[in-house]
């Protein structure tokens, strides 16, 4: 019975480890190429536009409404114990350390990760990747490197934008809708928010960007069997990248909290 149990467990486990290995090898290959082969600047800038510029609306709306609702909910609780002016501090630290990076990463996964795996997957099933190889172009150099680099540059900026919009909208909601005293609100916020909170948020953004880009590109590059295969690859890329963001977020929090501890010290 135990043997059967472990047999049933073994197959998926081996496949999972193999999958992780493939993604890590893709990442290693990409970083090697980044430092040893020329960068295709045009493709890089195209991807900056695709990832950074075209995500603006999504990121602003995500940041804005998250900031607004989080401010309101916190105020409803804090107001009862007469701590309405402390809301600013809670909102800013929470958005910097958690909400900003995680929600932006999930939105970027849905918008950019899906597009990446669908585009690369379509190229794969229509033999365009074989055509690249046949024309003596290494697919990682051409497809993955520009995307990975653009993601590493764009993600911290998008997260910073999301955080800034979230905090600003939270301020307006608190001051104009909930009638908190603006001076105390700002004073508390500045007092309790540290530069290490900002560093933590942006470090997370960078890590999430790496996870999203390699998981999505890998799914695209391994897509199989026509339109159905591309659809499946896209779905799996979004699901896997989202889960990877949420799971790694916990471990990143624990790790980064050692380097940049939370709270006022």
């Amino acid at each position, binding site marked *: 019975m135990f043997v059967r149990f472990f047999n049933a467990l073994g197959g998926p486990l081996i496949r999972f480890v193999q999958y992780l290995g493939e993604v890590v090898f893709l990442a290693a290959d990409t970083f090697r190429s980044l430092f040893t082969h020329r960068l295709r600047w045009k493709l890089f800038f195209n991807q900056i536009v695709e990832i950074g510029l075209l995500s603006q609306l999504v990121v602003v709306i995500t940041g804005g409404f998250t900031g607004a609702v989080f401010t309101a909910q916190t105020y409803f609780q804090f107001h009862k114990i007469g701590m309405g002016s402390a809301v600013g501090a809670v909102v800013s630290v929470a958005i910097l350390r958690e909400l900003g990076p995680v929600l932006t990463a999930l939105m970027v996964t849905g918008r950019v990760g899906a597009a990446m795996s669908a585009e690369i997957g379509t190229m794969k099933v229509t*033999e365009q990747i*074989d*055509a690249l190889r*046949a024309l*003596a*172009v*290494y697919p990682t150099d051409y497809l993955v490197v520009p995307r990975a680099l653009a993601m590493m540059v764009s993600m911290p900026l998008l997260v910073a934008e999301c955080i800034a919009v979230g905090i600003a909208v939270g301020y307006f909601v608190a001051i104009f809708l909930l009638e908190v005293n603006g001076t105390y609100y700002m004073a508390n916020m500045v007092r309790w928010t540290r530069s290490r909170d900002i560093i933590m948020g942006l470090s997370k953004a960078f890590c999430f960007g790496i996870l999203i880009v390699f998981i999505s590109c890998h799914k695209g590059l391994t897509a199989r069997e026509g339109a159905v295969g591309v659809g499946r690859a896209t779905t799996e890329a979004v699901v896997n990248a989202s889960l990877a963001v949420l799971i790694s977020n916990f471990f990143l929090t624990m790790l980064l909290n050692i380097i940049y501890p939370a709270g006022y010290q």
Partner: protein
Amino acid sequence: MNAQDRQNGSMIAVHGLVKTIGAQEILRGVDLDVGRGETLAIIGRSGGGKSVLLKHLIGLMRPDAGEIWIEGQNIIDMSERNLASIRQKVGILFQGSALFDSMTVAENIAFPLREAGERDAKVLRKRVSEMLEVMELQGQEEKMPVNLSGGMKKRVGLARSIIRQPSCILYDEPTSGLDPVVSDSINRLIRRLQQRLGVTSIVVTHDMKNAFHVADRIAYLHEGKIYFQGAPEELRQSPDHILQDFLLGRSDEQLTPKAFGVQS
């Protein structure tokens, strides 16, 4: 092997190539020699591994066993990056043309040159228009691949693979899915490239007219092995019933009433 291949001047030599995909043994020990400047047609049933064989010749697929020599170099153990030098010598026309659908016709054709480091827009334009002229595609520069017919796509794909003047061109089903007139124009194009550039060509096809039209020599791939190779005339006159069945398009399945589920 190396020295011997150089001596007899073969451009491509394949020895004992074996490939299994999934549970299916596609190639079971293929041996093939292609001389410099020669045109070889590989014929065989659909799904018989012709395209698989072709993809092995430029390292797009890796065999389970066997050797592939290209101009005296064994490509089996070459890394993907090192294969680039081989792929500059050997061009391939894919069955579905495999044009980059995010680029225009001109960008597709210029792609190999651009990747090789050519930046001068004037030179690129000149080379592209030369290619378009050879392919009889003048005025189509700005079209996207989606808006091209099958025959045009093949010609753009061909232009893209020969713009860097390879010494060998591989054609994967160049006439499949095309009407007889367009097929004929592709056949003539293949012939013209042979004469003009003196390239070695391998044409994988199941279109017999295509094979007889372009080939100096024909190889018949049957059940994972080269069953026959020789001049087109030899093939035509061969008494072998497997070859004759293929040439005449005879299926060996007996259509009995039972096969249709009819009780006799």
